[in-house]
Structures are given as C-alpha cells and as structure tokens.
C-alpha cells in the first residue's frame, strides 16, 4: 500500500471506527470477542483497501465487512454460543447507520439523565459499569439476589431510555 493510501485509509477508518465498533458491540456483547471481530474487520479492510470504490461511502463498505466478520465468527463459534443470523445482522446494520446522526445528542442527553440517578441505582450502575461486574457478582455487594439485580438493571436502563427520549423530544 502506498503511503498516500495508508494515510487515506487511516483517516477513513478513524472516522468510521466508532460507528463500526458500536455495530459490532450490538451483535457481539462480549467485549473481548467484539474486539477480535473489530480487529479482523480492520485487517480485512486494510488488506482489501485497493478494492474500495471511493465514489461510495466508506462506512457502508466497512459495515458490510464487519457484518461478514460477525457472521464468520458466529459460524466458527456456532457450537459454543448462538449469534444473530444473517438477516438480523443486515437489518441491524441498516438501522445502525440510520441512527448515527443522533448519537452525539443522545450521549449528551444520557449524561444529563445520569445526573438524576441516585442512591441504590447509582451504586448499581457504578458496579456494573465502573467495576465491570456481572449481576451475580453485584448481588452480594448490594445484599440482593442476582435476579433482583437483573430486574433493577433492566428498569434502570428503561428509565434512562425514557428520560433521554423525553429530553430529545422523541427525535430518535
């Protein structure tokens, strides 16, 4: 690859990366597995960059490569754990691209809404996201059952979603 192409690829990939990473995370919730898929996607894009048609959006091309990487992983690991099917991966890729314009506004709204979470809810979010603990490890720390933690997390997320939608006036 020429230096100019390398530079161009780096620029395009840097712009596309957050969106592609989000899409992969939607389909592959385990972080390390998602990292693997993202890395595979980047390598494939780099290897095949000569085939990229610059008249078309880079992100759409990259999303297609990521989708194949996810499905390949699903096939290779199908016996270990289920993954989204090809039709679902395609549908989610299209929907994910449509949502990208609202991502920044949504992130700001989320930050505002998080300020309103206090007490046990705040503790729960801290353990889940700051400490990266799964529900069964959170449960003994808060004196709750794992099922209760799962229910509480589900309600917190739904509440935050409602708060964000309200702040954004339903624009998402």
């Amino acid at each position, binding site marked *: 690859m020429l230096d100019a192409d390398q530079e161009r690829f780096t620029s395009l990939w840097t712009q596309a990366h957050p969106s592609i990473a989000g899409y992969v995370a939607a389909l592959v919730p385990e972080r390390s597995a998602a990292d693997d898929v993202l890395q595979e996607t980047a390598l494939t894009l780099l290897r095949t960059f000569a085939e990229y048609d610059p008249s078309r959006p880079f992100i759409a091309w990259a999303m297609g490569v990521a989708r194949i990487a996810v499905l390949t992983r699903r096939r290779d690991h199908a016996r270990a754990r*289920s993954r989204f099917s090809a039709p679902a991966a395609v549908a989610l890729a299209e929907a994910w691209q449509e949502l990208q314009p609202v991502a920044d506004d949504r992130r700001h709204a989320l930050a505002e809404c998080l300020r309103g979470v206090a007490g046990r809810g705040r503790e729960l979010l801290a353990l889940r996201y700051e400490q990266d603990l799964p529900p069964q490890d959170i449960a003994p720390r808060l004196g709750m059952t794992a099922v209760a933690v799962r229910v509480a997390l589900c309600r917190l997320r739904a509440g935050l979603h409602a708060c964000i939608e309200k702040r954004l006036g339903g624009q998402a």
Partner: protein
Amino acid sequence: MSPPPDPDSLISAHLDGELDDAGHRALEAWLLADRAHQRRFLLAVMDHRAMARSLAARPALTMRTARLMRRRRGLRVASWSGAGLAAALIIGLTVLLWPTGAAPGPHLQVAGASAAPGPRLQMTDTHVPAQRLEAGAAVTVAPGSGAVLLYDDGSRVDLDAGSALSVTGTHLTLQHGRLAASVAHQAAGQPFIITTPNATVTVLGTMLDVATDGVESVVAVTRGRVAVERSGDAARLEVGAGERSVVTVGGPLVAHAADAPDGRLLRVGPGQPFATLAELPALAPGDVVELQPGTHHGAWRLAALGTALRPVTIRGAPGAPPLIAAEGLVLSGAGTVPRAALQLEGGHWRVQHLAIADAHNGENAAGIRLVEVRGAMLSDCRITRCDQGIDAVGERVAIEDCDVGGCGTAGAQGRCRALSVFADEALVRGCLLHDQLFGQSLRSTCARLELVANRIIAAADGEISIATGAQPTTAILSGNLIVSSAARPDNSMRFILVEGEGAGVLQLIGNTCVAADARIVFLIPGRLAVAADGNIFTGSGRIAEAGRVEGYRNWLPSGATVPAGFRDSRSAAAPGFRDEAQGDYSLAPDSPCRNTVRDMWSQDVDAPHAPGTVGGLLPKRMPAALNKAGSRARTARTDMGAFEDG
C-alpha cells in the same frame, strides 16, 4: 413456571452477555418483526456503550484477563429445572458415555436412574435393558439416537433425537426437542402433564405430539382432547383430535387442522395470487409457498425467519414437481443476484417436491443454496445440470429422498459437488447422488455427518470427502451403496477421503463400496479413527491407507491388502451381487455375504471390538435414521453390505 421475557429484559440480558440460546432466538424474532424494534435495541446498545465509556473508572481489561474471568464465572443461565439439576448433581449416572474427547457424545445421558417404581426408559436402538427412573430424572437423547418411556399402565412416550427433558412420574418437563405420547386413561385428578418452557399440556388419556425449541411449542393431537395453558398470561385452549396449536409468546392461541399450514398458504404461478416468487410478501414463520406445476423461469433469493417448529416451506403443488429453470442467467452472487436458482438465507426452511435445473455462473452456482440457515430440511427435490447441486451452510441440515445428478462445470474442475454441506449437523438419507461432472458426489465440513441408505454413484473425481476442523468430527456412513465411475481421471484414486488435521471418528456400517478401478483406495482416513463393520469392499484390494483403521467381518476381494486392524474378514471370488452389470448390487441367494453378521447393531453380541479399540468405543447400534428409513430389518443375522435380502 416464569412468564415469557419482555423485550426490555431480553435486551438487558443481551447487554450483560447473559442471554441463553432460547432468549437469543426470542430477541432475534422480536427484532425482525419490526424496524422500530431494531431502533429500540440499537439505542439501548448505544446508551450501554456510552455509559461504559463515561462511567468506567479504570482501563478496560485485557482480552486474556477478560476471558479468564468469564471462564471463572461459568454458566449464567441454567436450563434445567431445580429438581432435575439436583438429581443430576446427586446421582449422575451416564449410560454409554464415550470415554474419549474425540469420540461422539453419548446416545443418551440419564441422571436419576432408580430401582424404585417409575417409568422405564428404553433406548430404541440398542439392546441395553430398560432402566427405571426416579423423580426428577434428567434425560438427554443424543443426535442420531432415540428413546422411549414405558409406563406400567401401558402409556408410552417416544423421545426424538436431541430431546432434553426431566421426568417425575407422569409429569414431563420438555426443555427442547419432540416427544410423541400415547397416554392410557388417567384417574380423575391425576392427569398426565407435559410442560414446555411456555406451555403446560394436561392429558387425561390420548395420543399427541409435543415439541418445543425452548421459545415456542407445538401440540398436535391424534386422539382425544388435551388442555393447553400458556405460561405468562395463563391463556387456555382445548385441542381436539386432528388439531394442532402453536403456542408462541404474545401470538393468538388457537387450534387449527393438523394438516393446515401454521402460517399463510401462498400460491405461486400463472393465474395464482403471485405470478412469481419475486412478488411474495415478507415471509413469516409457518408460511407455505406453493409453486404450481410447470416451468418457473428465473432465480430467487429469499430471506425469512422461520422458526424450528414453524419453518417457512417452499414446495411444489401435488402432481409433477414444478421446475425452476435458471437457463441463460449468470448467477454471480454479487449484490442482490443469488448464487443459486433458489437461495434461502437465515432461519428455518423446508423445501419439498421441486425440480431445479441449469443454475450456472461458470464456477459455483448451485441448484439450491442455503446461507447461514439455522435449520433446513430438503426432501423430494431433483436437481440437474447446475455448477453445484446443493450448497448448504448452516447449523442443522437434513436432505432426504433427493436426486442430484449431472452437475459440474469445467471452470471448477475437482471442486464441483453434487452436495456440499458445511454445518454443525447434517443428515443425508435416501438420496441418489450420481454422475457428478468434474468433482465429487459429496463434500462435508460438518461436526456430525450421517449418510444413511443413499446411492452415491459415478462421480468424476472421488465419491466422498470429509473435511475435518478444530471440532472433533463424527461421520457415520450406514447402508449406503457407493459405486465409482469407470471413467475417472487417472490421477484420482480416492473413494472416501478425509482432509485436514482434525480428529474424530469415521464409522462405516453395512455399506457396499464398489470400485471400478483396481487402483482405487477405499479409505484415506487422515487423522480420523475408522471402524468398519459388515461392509462389502469390491473392485479393488486397496482397502485403506495408513491410519487408525479397524474392522470386523467385512467382505474383501481375494488378495486384498487387509488392514492390520481388520478382524474376521471374509473373502471369495465375488460378493455375489444379483446383477452387477445392470447395477443391481443386492445379494443373490447364494451370496457368501448373506447372514454373516450376528446382529451388527447389538452392543454385546459377538464382541467384535476389544475394549480400548476404536470399535470398542463406538455404539453397536442401528442409527435411528436408518431404522426410520426402513431399508433393512433388524434381524438376528444380517447381511454384509447395504442391502438386507433376508
């Protein structure tokens, strides 16, 4: 029983990496039902990632550390009931457990066998005695096997391969799989109860089938009536004789005639509501697409989300099978162009009674192509003059009673196949694969492959190839007639070829293998351990290349190079086919191969393999698939080869 999970719970569990297979299927079904659902899901993912970034107080774990932590956390979602799990932990009896990692799984795992009164469990494909089950016994029936529960009042419950359930007297909890119950009249107040993850079926004396994939359930009644109650909303329904009901999450709870589709009947053809497949609406679980007789020119690509219990069916109307003809098209697979005359993607499918011809792109266009399917059953299809016959990639694929012949293209010399399957599990039964041009009859890249009662005839470049991989491979060939072509390229002497470095087992039971060239090598086993019992090898004395090859009572040509692991082989001038010249490979009355194997399906008769050998680890059983095919009777003394002539 807990109510069905709502979408928010499914999304939340997905974000926490705690969604089990059933939950994942439910989430995917919900997602594909509505674009708004996809947006709702993706917004939750977006928020989840944003919180992870903004709240994270420390660097992300390294990949290795994260993996180690996940291993320590272990299973997150239990699939067994409390009683079943307790019984499994306390007793843990396993019947016929394979002692090595390379060998296939057990036919049947039972936790909770007992001498106390209770139903008796009998495997249907071996002579292992029935065993009584105690309350809470957990039963798992492995792929390719079968079992039956026998009650003292005459009730019986047949369990399909792959089923998992717990048994407490007359209360069965079916986690997944299918059972067929014939229940004697039960005393008032003591019903026979079958519970699935989303339904409870109460039986007072009847004959019925119950199946579940863990998300939805199907109840079909042959005799009598049953009461069905859906978990979650406690909706109730009575299902009578000749009726069937599908219990889904949130769908209507109704019964309909057992032979009617679970979804819509969509007729396609001239004068029908849909002129071509291209005009069909989005397909939903249970839909049946029926092509009218005649020729349908074109090629189609369909994606749908049928479920395991409600697959989308593409079938020909009764009468002569409709022909899908792709003549003149270049099926490149680029963009929206299919790479097959009929390309089916995702979900669960059933394809029946179709003829397909002339799918080409000069390399790899197929008659039927399955792309990332969860499950597919192809039956009664005839495919001819395509680059490839059937090209299947998915989780579970079954192909039955299909005729695939005359396929191949010079553009892919050596790589054309009548049938190419890349799946977790594949069953090919009762098919005719023949006259393949420029390649092999069949190539498998499956963790588990069963070839049963097929005729595999005259491929240009080898009969069967089995590619192995990281997962151990189990390949079972039983009751097949395999005949090589007399007009092969000189450089191709392979018959059954194993490729790759993966381990596993290749089991050949009662096959007739006919080489048209004395230089052909029947078995190139690679790293698979081979056990061959009761087969006929004729036409070449080169039985196997180096490898772990064992055999018991096979027929070999006089002067054959006998593998060191073969015992009690038989030889004569000829195996005594009725009329080999006319392609009749059944056995003449005076054939030396007749009645030579004492019940080759029995676990203990003749003790053909010593403990610790490959064969000693393998089940001496009739594969359930062969048993159902009815191609040979289970007799005390069986014939060598693929045909049972009495």
